[in-house]
């Protein structure tokens, strides 16, 4: 939480929070510095809380954001995929009259854009009669020729449409840009709202803020109405580019909120001209795709051939009317800012109305008049590419050196069609509390509309984005800006409808929904990494404790065994020798991500997979994984040049064991025993069995005259010491240890217990009813379980020539069956996850 909050001046409504900005428009203060009237209830409510309570609550809110794992991935950010969402405690307030004005203007704009789309993908009269320059359409990468003439359900193109709004110094809102293909941010707006209402319920009540839930219900109803069949219970999926996308959090969040399956392109397949979801139990038809993929990525067969995240054949399925895609494919054609120049005329021609809400002044350089203006006013404009796909950042010519400026001007004159200029709006400011002092920051509001009946409905709210500094030229999340909740104030009472408890009557069901194969694969690996992390931590802790307590290898008969087991797990074979001082190697096995099998590396993988299945595990499980200790890449920076002390290493390991135990507990206690749980459990049990095998192969397979410390260590790492002591008191015998750790099925840590669980899990996997007898996965699981069940403790413990041959044989046998089982499961259930590829072309 900003330290400044506690220093905030009393939010007395008579005192401005900061001096007025000359010539600028401030959302909360009038030019004289007085609070605007619609802001008074909010500041009053804040005042009543007092600075200390405010700071306290905001600390909780930040915590909530972190715990919910709200992230926005910034490309190239060192925090990468885990950059927490930036939310400011002061919302942007919009007065009722202004909201009505915006609503009218934006609904008109959405209707207009939809008519333009219908024409471009139909008769193209707008090109013939010169209302839209062909130069904005023919070379437009967003103009997708395969979409031309495709009949759409209800002739609707835009199901969720967004615009960026900015207010100029004159106090009027203008449209800065349109997002027509797959607008982002609606989910963040929702998350912001949830955090704000939990943090400031009093202010929220006092201000009479419109709820967002009705809007999302409209969106859900609209998407449902698109289904070409199964109208009563259509299957709707949210198609995401995947966890590396900047707004992946939002995709998972919206999918969960709206009740849709979150899918990637690889989860879908087209057969018989229809789209199917690949589930463990087979293929299930999909009726509606709510997509967050850009247009051209959606189908590598007919659209962008290099797309690896699309669904081959999707275009044809849409053309055949077998699936609906929202927004319609091809809608990105309108994202050229140059079109804004022509909207006033188009509005008159197509709707017979004046354009209600103006766009920011825009000049397309392909138009001779536009070019002339831009050349004459080069320092007053911001220059953008005509087509956003050109990936050129906006340029402010006035910020360039003389040479750069001249070179750019030449470029514009040489290829005028490629450039659009817009007026540099002095954006309005709003108060933020994220700095040391309350301060003004520029704001841009993203507003959302959903198709509703024949028209559109507006979200009474939106995502307000805040510039990173008071003088920043661009307001962008990628540029380090933050966000605000947007409160649209109601003139009268507000509906308190909520989507969170499902609306309408609910069919009682015990099925948890069907599991996509990719999700099963990820849960399997989540289980494996979680258990691998726990096993490795226990082994490392065993080694670290001993190193901390004693000085030399000579007193540590059991240490080589533990190190051998670690090496077996990490590299698959036992090392030739043990270093004189294993301390540095143990520390590296904890912290060094690059070291094979290191705990830091496993935890990183665990976090990554957990991020991918975030929509499938409980929030608590996600929190546990998120809360696991960090293993700094450079221990010296955290612990000083001597590295961590043994106590510090132990402390991290202890905390990690507890965190992972919590994860395991949640997996047992809070997940229904559906297919997802089966795969998670398969992963955990398989990994734990392999871990026990490695532990014994490193230790008890070798026999030594004085084995007490080794037996102790095995019991400790296998978490079975308590049970052993209760049964045998202080007597340490190899056969008793092996009985408990290998054979005793009632010990949840024993090898046999893992194999029994595996056999049970495998027998519950979906398989074709017509198949008689056991599947290959069942046979392998049963073979492993049988081998251990038939073994005898005395024989396993029998020594011959400093080793235990029977134990070794058993461990080798089971150690071969388990990887084969893993491969078979992959082949049987997950093999159709293979990626599609292109045939080589012909001439």
């Amino acid at each position: 939480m900003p330290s400044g909050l506690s220093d905030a001046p009393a939010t007395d409504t008579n005192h401005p929070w900061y001096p007025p900005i000359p010539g600028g428009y401030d959302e909360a203060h009038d030019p004289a510095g007085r609070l605007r009237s619609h802001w008074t209830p909010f500041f009053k409510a804040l005042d009543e809380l007092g600075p200390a309570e405010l700071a306290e609550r905001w600390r909780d809110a930040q915590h909530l954001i972190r715990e919910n794992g709200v992230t926005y991935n910034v490309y190239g950010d060192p925090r990468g995929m885990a950059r927490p969402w930036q939310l400011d405690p002061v919302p942007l307030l919009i007065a009722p009259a202004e909201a009505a004005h915006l609503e009218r203007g934006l609904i008109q704009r959405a209707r207009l854009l939809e008519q333009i789309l219908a024409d471009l993908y139909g008769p193209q009269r707008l090109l013939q009669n010169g209302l839209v320059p062909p130069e904005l359409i023919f070379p437009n990468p967003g103009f997708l020729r395969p979409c031309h003439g495709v009949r759409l359900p209800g002739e609707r193109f835009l199901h969720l449409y967004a615009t960026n709004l900015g207010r100029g110094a004159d106090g009027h809102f203008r449209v800065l840009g349109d997002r027509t293909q797959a607008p982002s941010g609606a989910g963040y707006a929702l998350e912001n709202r949830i955090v704000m209402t939990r943090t400031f319920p009093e202010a929220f009540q006092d201000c009479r803020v419109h709820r967002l839930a009705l809007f999302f219900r409209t969106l859900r109803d609209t998407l449902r109405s698109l289904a070409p069949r199964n109208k009563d219970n259509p299957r709707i999926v949210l198609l995401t580019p995947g966890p590396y996308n900047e707004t992946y959090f939002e995709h998972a969040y919206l999918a969960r909120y709206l009740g849709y399956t979150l899918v990637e392109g690889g989860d879908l397949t087209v057969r018989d001209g229809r789209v199917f979801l690949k589930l463990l139990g087979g293929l299930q038809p999909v009726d509606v795709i709510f997509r967050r993929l850009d247009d051209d990525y959606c189908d590598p067969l007919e659209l962008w051939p290099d797309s690896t995240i699309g669904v081959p054949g999707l275009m044809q399925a849409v053309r055949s009317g077998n699936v609906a895609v929202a927004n319609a494919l091809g809608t990105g054609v309108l994202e050229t800012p140059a079109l804004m120049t022509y909207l006033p005329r188009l509005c008159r021609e197509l709707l017979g109305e004046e354009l209600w809400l103006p766009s920011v002044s825009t000049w397309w350089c392909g138009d001779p008049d536009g070019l002339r203006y831009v050349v004459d006013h080069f320092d007053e404009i911001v220059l953008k590419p005509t087509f956003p796909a050109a990936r050129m950042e906006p340029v402010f010519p006035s910020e360039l050196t003389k040479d750069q400026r001249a070179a750019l001007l030449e470029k514009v004159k040489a290829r005028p069609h490629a450039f659009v200029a817009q007026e540099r709006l002095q954006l309005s400011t709003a108060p933020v509390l994220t700095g040391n002092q309350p301060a003004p920051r520029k704001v841009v509001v993203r507003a959302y509309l959903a198709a509703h009946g024949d028209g559109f409905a507006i979200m009474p709210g939106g995502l307000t984005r805040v510039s990173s500094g008071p003088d920043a030229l661009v307001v962008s999340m990628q540029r380090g800006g933050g966000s605000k909740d947007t409160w649209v104030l109601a003139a009268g009472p507000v509906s308190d409808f909520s989507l969170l408890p499902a609306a309408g009557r609910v069919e009682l069901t015990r099925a948890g929904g069907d599991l996509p194969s990719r999700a099963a694969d990820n849960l399997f690996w989540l289980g494996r990494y979680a258990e691998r992390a726990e096993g490795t931590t226990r082994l490392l802790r065993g080694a670290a404790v001993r190193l901390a307590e004693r000085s030399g290898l000579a007193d540590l008969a059991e240490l080589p065994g533990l190190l051998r087991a670690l090496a077996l797990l990490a590299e698959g074979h036992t090392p030739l020798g043990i270093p004189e001082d294993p301390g540095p190697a143990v520390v590296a096995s904890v912290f060094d991500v690059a070291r094979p099998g290191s705990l830091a590396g496993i935890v990183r993988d665990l976090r990554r997979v957990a991020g991918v299945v975030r929509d499938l595990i409980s929030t608590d499980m996600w929190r546990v994984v998120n809360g696991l200790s960090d293993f700094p890449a450079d221990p010296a920076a955290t612990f000083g040049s001597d590295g961590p002390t043994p106590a510090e290493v132990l402390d991290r390991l202890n905390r990690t064991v507890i965190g992972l135990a919590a994860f395991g507990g949640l997996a047992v206690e809070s997940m229904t025993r559906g297919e997802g749980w089966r795969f998670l459990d398969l992963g955990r049990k398989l990994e734990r069995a392999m871990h026990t095998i490695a532990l014994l192969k490193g230790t008890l397979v070798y026999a030594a005259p004085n084995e007490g410390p080794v037996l102790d260590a095995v019991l400790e790492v296998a978490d079975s010491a308590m049970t052993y002591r209760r049964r045998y008191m202080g007597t340490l015998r190899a056969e008793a240890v092996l009985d408990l750790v290998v054979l005793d099925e009632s010990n949840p840590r024993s090898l046999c217990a893992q194999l029994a669980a595996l056999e049970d899990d495998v027998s519950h996997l979906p398989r074709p009813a017509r198949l008689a007898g056991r599947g290959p996965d069942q046979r392998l699981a049963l073979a492993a379980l049988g081998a251990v069940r038939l073994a005898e403790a005395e024989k396993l413990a029998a020594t011959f020539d400093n080793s235990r041959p029977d134990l070794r044989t058993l461990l080798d046998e089971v150690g071969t069956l388990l990887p084969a089982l893993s491969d078979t499961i992959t082949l049987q259930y997950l093999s159709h996850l293979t990626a599609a590829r292109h045939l080589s072309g012909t001439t």
Partner: protein
Amino acid sequence: MTHYRITHTTTYTYGDPVSLCQNVAHLTPRSSPRQRVERTVMSVTPEPAVFEERLDYFGNPVTYFTVQEQHTELVVRVSHRMVVRPDTPMPTATPPWEEVRAQLRRDRSPAWLDAYQYAFDSRFAAAGKTPSDYAAASFTSGRPILDAALDLTRRIYMDFVYDAKATTLATPVAEVFETRRGVCQDFAHVELACLRSLGLAARYVSGYLSTLPPPGRPRLVGADATHAWISIFCGDAGWVDLDPTNNQVPADRHILLAWGRDYEDVSPLKGVILGGGRHEVKVSVDVAPVS
């Protein structure tokens, strides 16, 4: 009138079984003032589960089909019977190229608007400084557009070497300019890039070329080939085909399949498969004149 019987077989052989393949084919010829399609048949083995025909954005017949049974070989065979006119009347006088360019930018009548779409960059044939400089020598000030284009065609024929090993299907024009080597679609892309750099409208044409056996030798079945050339919009004089690979104005030995902005719009057969391992493709074309 020359009558042709054409068979065109594409065979994919896979190392591993393919469980699903989805394809888009531009293998059915379109009609034009120069040619009439009397009969055309496509057969796919194994039997496709979905087989849909329609016209694409450019008016070409296009076929979408999927094979959903496991297979290790895919055979797509088309046979056409066509009539091609022996001589295309060549426009005698064409306007200066600058006039055509200026009218393209301003005229919104159907023929001109349709032509204008081919004046813009496409993935495989985009304007640039190199093609622009290369074209300048032919497109001198005030020169009649067809006269200049014939000169450009001749120069590409002279300056570039036909070399089937030099390029892949997706060789960028810049690279072809660099090596000055390539095959018919490379030369077509080069000429398109040149003409588009000047602001002129030109399209890519995919089709067949009937080869003549040496005198006294029998015609070899399967020795014919698919071919590519271009077509340039000459204003009111209409579209004129030009073959930079052979320095010819296509007549009755060039048989049209489809046209588009470049190879990507009209590639004869493209597809996406699941499985397959290593795969090989064989194409055999036979263009037989019949009396």
